[in-house]
């Protein structure tokens, strides 16, 4: 086996040193009746070339070469080459959690820079060293608000990513956290009157997303006012991090739960991604997850350590702020490098391109379909309603190697034949025009499909 650095003679010699005749003697503590006396029924040992070939084949069966208009919490942005060059360095790739600070300063300093940049972009004062993803970060942020307010219930916007809502529901069920929901209005934003009604004196947090699931930018100030007036904390989820380049961050929020995937992390069929929680300094001791802090060594030299560990499970056990143990360090490093590459000016220009492509696409789609939620600003996603079921239309788009927007019926039955489309800096005008052309064609022929049932009854 090519990963094992031992010759048969080495093994023999080691067994001899241990005074054993066979390696099976080492497994004697396992009761004989349970020992496996056959080969595992798994694929046979493969050569590296065969493994590469296997995954290339799977890749070909997995939308290779398609142009996609999917976003909805997973965004295809360009990933600068140096991200992979740098994260592939074994010193980053194959290091453990930086508990031993003296030989982990590389990881620690990079996380400190990550925390700083997340603070700069979100307008918050502290950020942790990452969470599993945006969905679990949102759930953990809400739990944090529950601890801080001593209240238990949570008001959730229906315009929050539906899968984030599902994850929160799972986390909340057994922690005695009742959830209420607030719907959205004709502009796609949280219905403020409904939100107000869903809040009680027991509401610990209001959880919204901005830009929300429909790509619409929420009126965070108005929502914050309602939350704070009622003594609840405002938790804002950000699923599309690139929006922070051009969209004002939700500075009125008490906690921001972010998905940083857009910053240089592969879409990768849904993970691994990079959640982050950012908040105010005064709330830091109730924040879950790892934190890196600056300190000095015995000679007074600047250095970095994991800090405030008394919040964490390995110290506090059942009294910890969360059971979270790993973070997403390597993914956070991708995010860190991406933020460094684009920086102060590039992130803004990048976000602007997303905005321009989306504005163009929404304008083109509006000529042939019904673009919903036009009353409020949006970032890089928009909702198009068609006469025909989008699933059927998209089936035809696949013939042109185009993956259309996400049909919303599954998550929002009331939106009927609507689909969520996304454009990033990688979406070409050509692709937009082709998709719009195909939608136009479908819409032109749609009335006849509608008349069909009438013909049948005749």
């Amino acid at each position, binding site marked *: 086996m*090519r990963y094992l*650095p*031992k010759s048969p003679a080495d093994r023999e010699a080691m067994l001899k040193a241990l005074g054993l005749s066979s*390696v099976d003697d080492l497994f004697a503590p*396992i009761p004989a009746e349970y*020992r496996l006396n056959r080969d*595992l029924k*798994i*694929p046979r040992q493969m050569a590296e070339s065969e493994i*590469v070939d296997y*995954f290339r*084949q799977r890749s*070909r069966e997995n*939308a290779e070469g398609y142009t996609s208009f*999917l976003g909805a919490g*997973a965004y*295809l942005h360009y990933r600068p080459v*140096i991200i992979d060059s*740098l994260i592939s360095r*074994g*010193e980053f790739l194959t*290091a453990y959690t930086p508990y031993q600070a003296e*030989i982990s*300063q*590389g990881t620690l300093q990079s996380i400190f820079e990550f925390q*700083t*940049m997340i603070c700069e972009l979100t307008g918050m004062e502290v950020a942790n*060293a990452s969470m*599993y993803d945006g*969905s679990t970060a949102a759930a953990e942020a809400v739990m944090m608000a529950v601890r801080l307010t001593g209240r238990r219930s949570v008001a959730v916007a229906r315009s929050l990513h539906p899968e984030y809502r599902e994850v929160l529901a*799972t986390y909340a069920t057994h922690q005695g956290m009742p959830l209420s929901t607030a719907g959205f209005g004709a502009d796609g934003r949280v219905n403020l009157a409904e939100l107000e009604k869903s809040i009680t004196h027991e509401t610990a947090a209001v959880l919204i997303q901005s830009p929300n699931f429909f790509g619409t930018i929420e009126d965070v100030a108005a929502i914050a006012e309602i939350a704070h007036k009622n003594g609840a904390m405002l938790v804002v989820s950000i699923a599309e991090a690139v929006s922070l380049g*051009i969209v004002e961050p939700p500075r009125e929020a008490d906690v921001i739960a972010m998905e940083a995937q857009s910053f240089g992390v592969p879409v990768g069929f849904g993970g*691994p991604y990079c959640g982050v929680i950012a908040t105010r300094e005064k709330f830091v001791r109730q924040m879950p997850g790892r*934190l*890196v*802090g*600056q300190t*000095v*060594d*015995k000679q007074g030299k600047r250095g970095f*350590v994991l*800090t405030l560990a008394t919040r964490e*499970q390995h110290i*506090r056990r059942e009294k*910890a702020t969360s059971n979270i*143990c*790993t973070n*997403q*360090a*390597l993914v956070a490093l991708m995010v860190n490098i991406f933020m460094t*590459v*684009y*920086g*102060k*000016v*590039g992130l803004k220009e990048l976000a602007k391109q997303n*905005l321009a*492509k989306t504005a163009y696409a929404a304008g083109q789609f509006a000529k042939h379909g019904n673009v919903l939620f036009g009353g409020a*600003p949006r970032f890089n996603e928009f909702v198009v309603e068609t006469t025909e079921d989008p699933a059927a239309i998209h*089936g035809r788009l696949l013939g042109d190697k185009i993956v259309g927007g996400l049909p919303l019926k599954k998550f929002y039955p009331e939106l009927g034949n609507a689909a969520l489309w996304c454009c990033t800096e990688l979406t070409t005008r050509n692709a937009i025009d082709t998709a719009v052309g195909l939608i136009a064609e479908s819409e032109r022929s749609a009335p006849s499909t509608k008349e069909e049932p009438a013909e049948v009854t005749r």
Partner: protein
Amino acid sequence: MKDRIRKATRHVNQNEGLIFEKSSAGKAAWKLPPLDVPEVDTSRLLGAAERKDLGNMPEVSEIEIIRHFTRLSTWNYAIDLGMYPLGSCTMKYNPRVNEAVARVEGIANGHPYQPEKISQGALQILKTLSECLIEITGMDAITLQPAAGAHGEMTGLLMVRAYHHAKGKPRKKVLIPDSAHGTNPATAAMVDYAVENLKSDSRGMVDVAALAAQMNEEVAALMLTNPNTLGIFEQDIHKIADILHAKGGLLYMDGANMNALVGKVRPGDFGVDLMHLNLHKTFSTPHGGGGPGSGPVAIKKILEPFLPKPVVVSKPDGTLGFEYNRPQSVGRVRAFYGNFGMFVRALAYIQANGPDGLRQTTEDAVLNANYIRKGLEGTYELPYSTPTMHEVVFSDKLQAKKAVRTMDIAKRLIDYGFHPYTTAFPLIVPGAMMIEPTESESVEEMDLFVDAMKSIAEEVEENPQTVLDAPHSTRVSRLDETAAARKPVLRWKPRE
């Protein structure tokens, strides 16, 4: 003193400030293509939501970024540099083909919501990995959704709760041995179970008599790490399972140490009802400085209705798809389907090994740990003489007489060119020194490690101050953690 150190030689490494300290207006590492659609008026589109300023975000060139992170990287220890004997962490070699295949176009850029028809490659990977892990654990079904081991524990306990709930009542508590990982009790609390500690016996195993006395119909499950955190296989595992099952409880196995068992014994065969795996431990996905992990949960048939949704199913037309209609499911624990990129790596690892390779891997891991145990026995106190599997726990009892503690010895190991072992865990061993070499170490590397540990023990006798002041050869000496926690500085700020 210096000539004792055979594995490492000091060499110059580069200083490097924070990236913000290199920033100046006008430098850039990015270039966007020309816009092929009309420019937009951002203030008209966004109104009050328009962001004007990005604060102190850096402005640097590409070469500066390359040097910055390369220099930082050289300040880290890594498996690629040498033995990383952290007990319980399983710091094994991370094969590079795993990284290569995770970056193949359709795998790296596949979208979680693309139609199933054009997701067959990803679905096939999910299915094949699931089948392999089910066979390796001897269980009946699996969810790959949990993002890490602790997340898998939570998912597992949610299923335990749903199972008992379906039977009438969810029960009140979870039993956890005193040697367990901190995640176990923290997880139980998140799923609203009270934690009841279970004492270990003099062999370092679950005290079966105590378990029998503590077991009743309020106990939902026992969370057991096997081999446990002392590296000891729970020999009475079948009795433990029987005691649990007799009163309707479930046996949850924390699979953190599954690398001691793969191909030799299957938890499903010795009474385990559910368990999580850490793909970043047993199945070689990189630790990456703290993550990403992946924590699949394998279960017996009785728990199948409660799996998180969606689950992968074969459809009548022969294609694969996701099934969402699972009325008894515990719900979703993460958006999308889990850390897919880690599944790709784990499957590539299983393929590179095959049944024979996985078995040999386990044998080598256990052989290595016992080789080190033998090498250090006598030099360091072995609190439990019970045979151990993939890791061994010593204590600092002998060295404590000179006021040198486990952390000091660990820090001195750094000067010898090794990463420290795990200190002060498990909690039942005062001054614990937990060592796990994994299968990835050669005899030569382990001999160097044993020599280093023996040499440090001598230093403790001859000149304990050298050990107390260690490390001596790193960029920074021991850092002031108290100050860091008392007045936290958690971000850089420009000078006022």
